[in-house]
Each structure stands twice: as C-alpha cells, then as structure tokens.
C-alpha cells in the first residue's frame, strides 16, 4: 500500500497488512529492515540493562540492581517456579533472557517513534519457538530415553486400553508439534492484532481530525483518539502478559521434557 492513493481518494481507508511490510533500510541489504534493526536494538537494550543491574551485584542492592532483581525474582517465582520447582535456578538464564527479550520486542509497539512490535513478524517468535522445540526434544530424549519420551507422551498411564487409539495420535501431534506452533503463533497474532487495532484507531483520529475535518466526522475522530489511548494502555498490559506467557510455556515444555507428565 502506498500513501498516494489514500490521499488522492480523500476517503477513509483502514490500515491493512501493509503495516507489517518494511523496505530495507540500506540499499542492497534486503534483510536489514526496521524490524531487524529493532531486534538488534532490543538485544542491546536487554544486555545493557541487565549489565547495569547485575555486572557487579551487591549483597545490599542499590539503584538499577533493585529493578533488575525485581524482574529476576518475578521471572523466578512466577514463571520458573510453578513448573520447574527446584530446577528453577538451572533454567533461569534461558527464561530470564527470554522474558526480557520478548517483552522489550513487544514493548517497541508502544514506544513513540518506534511503534512497531517486532514480535508481530512471525519470523521472530518462530525462531524462538523452534529453539525451544529443539531444546525440548533434546531434553526429553536425554532424560526419558528416545522411546520413553514418546511412550510417556503418547501412552499416559491409567486410561482404558481402547482409548489409546485416539489419545496416542492426538498427544503425538499436539505435544510434539501443535503446541510449539501455537507457542509462536499466539505471540505473533496478539502482537499483530494489537498493532493493527491501534493503527486503525490512530488512522481514524488522524483522518477525521486532520485530513478531513467535518462537523460529523470530528466526534468520530475524537473517539478514535480516545480509543487509541485506552488501547495503548491495554496493549502495554498485553505485551507484558504475552512475554510472560511465552516464557511460562517454555518452562512448562522444559518441565514436561525433564519428567514424564501426569
């Protein structure tokens, strides 16, 4: 979508999937677009923040270390502990990195002038989900054995025999593939939908208050601005929630691989 026909038409047109297409920032480097730049910046921000907090941790925390510990303890108590229990500390490096990275990537959607949640590009959640999938397969085979891992998932004990005909294929597909695909898609879809809906209301506000100010259109424009503000607040919550859910599910998958479920 280009801006020219929209202006020429002088008619309101809702923003579409074009919002998520970014041209290269540098000629010739097709991969280096805005989401790619933001992903690198996000990584840098996370590293700088955690470095500021934990590079020389004090027994009695001061300043940034307090904030860092708040984030760390939230991750440990709310994400790792519910599933991993005593193994929490061992997996905290992964879960803490993941939670912060995903959250910052999401948060870019509500940072002024940046305003693009990187996780709304499927490639970014997908690569994380694939990484988790590889890790989980490795851990499952290592801890439960190559046959035991599949057997424990597909044939959970305590069910009447005939039902395994149904359970086994469902569990196989669901546990080894579907839940890892939805792991990525859940994050991607919420970020994309949130970005679209905020873009829509911003466009309503912009169009009816600036592009084409009419007595009838003005209230609609005001409503658009109000909705944009409200939804931005809601989106801030969703961004954190999705980062939390993504890391939480990772912890759950790891736990399922370490020990047979049920």
């Amino acid at each position, binding site marked *: 979508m280009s801006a020219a026909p929209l202006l020429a038409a002088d008619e309101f047109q809702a923003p579409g999937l074009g919002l998520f297409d970014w041209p290269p920032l540098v000629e010739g480097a097709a991969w280096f677009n805005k989401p790619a730049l933001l992903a*690198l910046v996000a990584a840098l921000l996370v*590293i700088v923040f955690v470095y500021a907090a934990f590079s020389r*941790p004090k027994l009695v925390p001061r300043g940034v270390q307090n904030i860092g510990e708040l984030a760390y303890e939230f991750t440990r108590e709310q994400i790792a502990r519910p599933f991993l229990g005593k193994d929490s500390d061992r997996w905290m490096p992964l879960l803490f990195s993941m939670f912060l*990275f995903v959250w910052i990537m999401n948060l870019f959607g509500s940072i002024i002038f940046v305003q693009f949640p990187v996780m709304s590009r499927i*490639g970014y959640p997908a690569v994380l989900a694939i990484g988790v999938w590889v890790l989980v397969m490795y851990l499952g085979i290592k801890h439960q054995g190559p046959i035991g891992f599949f057997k424990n998932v597909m044939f959970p004990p305590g069910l009447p025999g005939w039902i395994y005909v149904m359970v086994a294929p469902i569990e196989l597909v669901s546990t080894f593939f579907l839940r890892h695909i939805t792991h990525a898609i859940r994050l991607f879809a919420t970020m994309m939908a949130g970005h679209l809906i905020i873009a829509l209301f911003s466009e309503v506000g912009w169009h009816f208050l600036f592009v084409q100010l009419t007595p009838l259109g003005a209230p609609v424009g005001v409503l658009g601005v109000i909705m944009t503000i409200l939804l931005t607040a809601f989106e801030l919550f969703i961004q954190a929630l999705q980062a939390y859910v993504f890391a939480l599910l990772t912890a759950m998958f790891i736990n399922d691989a370490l020990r047979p479920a049920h």
Partner: protein
Amino acid sequence: MYLLAAEENNPLIPHPAEMVVGGFAFLLVLFFVGRLLVPRIQKTLQERTEAIEGGLKKAADAQEEAQQALKEYREQLAEARHEAARMRDEAREQGAQIKVELREEAQAEARRLVEAAHVQIEADRQQAFAQLRTEIGRLSTDLAARIVGESLEDEARQRRTVDRFLEELESSNTQAVR
C-alpha cells in the same frame, strides 16, 4: 507481479532473514545475560540468603544462650532459696533447743534455790524451835514458881498475874524474834 508480492507478504510465513536476525539477537542476549550475568546475580542472591540465614542462626544461638543463662540463674536462685529455707529451719530448731535447754537450766536453778531456801528455813526453824524450847522451859518454871509462890485468893490478882505473864511472854517473844 501483484500475486507474487501477496504471496511473499503472507504474514504467517516466516522469512529466513528474520529468523536469522531474531535468532542472532536472542543468542546475543542469551550469551551476555544468561551466560555471564544471571550466574552473578544467582551467586549474590545465594550469598544474601546465606547472610540472612547466618544472621538468623546467630540470633537463634544468642537466644538459646540467653535462655540457658536464665535457666541457670533460676536454678541458682531456687537453690539459694532452698538453702535459706533450710538454714531458717535449722536456726528455728536450734533456737527451740536452746530455749528448752535454758528453761531446763532455769528450772534446775529454781529448784536448787527452793531447796536451798527449804534447807535454810528448816535450819531456822530448828534453831527457833530449840531456842523456843529452852525459853518455854524457863518461862514455865518461872510461871509455875509464881503461881505456886503467891496466893491466889483474889481473882483480879490472879488475872493480873496471868496478864503480866502474857505481856512478859509477848515482850520476850518479840525480843527473841529480834
């Protein structure tokens, strides 16, 4: 051309370039944050836990020590009270004994004094008796001599004689007592 572009922009198809960039960015985070920094804070948190637990343990030890000391003091106090009670009882007993002894002594002394007085009285009595006997003998012979020697016609004289006799007897008696 348009179709191709639409296919390329399918939002559900991940671009390999994105996955490489995303994977690289996350690995960077994982290396610096997960590998280098998280172990540091874990170590610090562990140390903090230990410091707090150490502090708590120290406090618990001090508490225990204080309890022990209190218990010892209480035991000592109870022992002292017991000792005091014992000494009081002993003193009371001793006092009672002393009292009894003193009373016995006093009674013995009193008896001794009474006996001595009796002896004295007896001696005095004996002496008085001996003296009286000689006196009475002498008086009786005097009286008899007078009665026999004088006529006893007159009753009045007779009475006077007896009275005189009694007077003399009385005066002599007082002299004797003196």
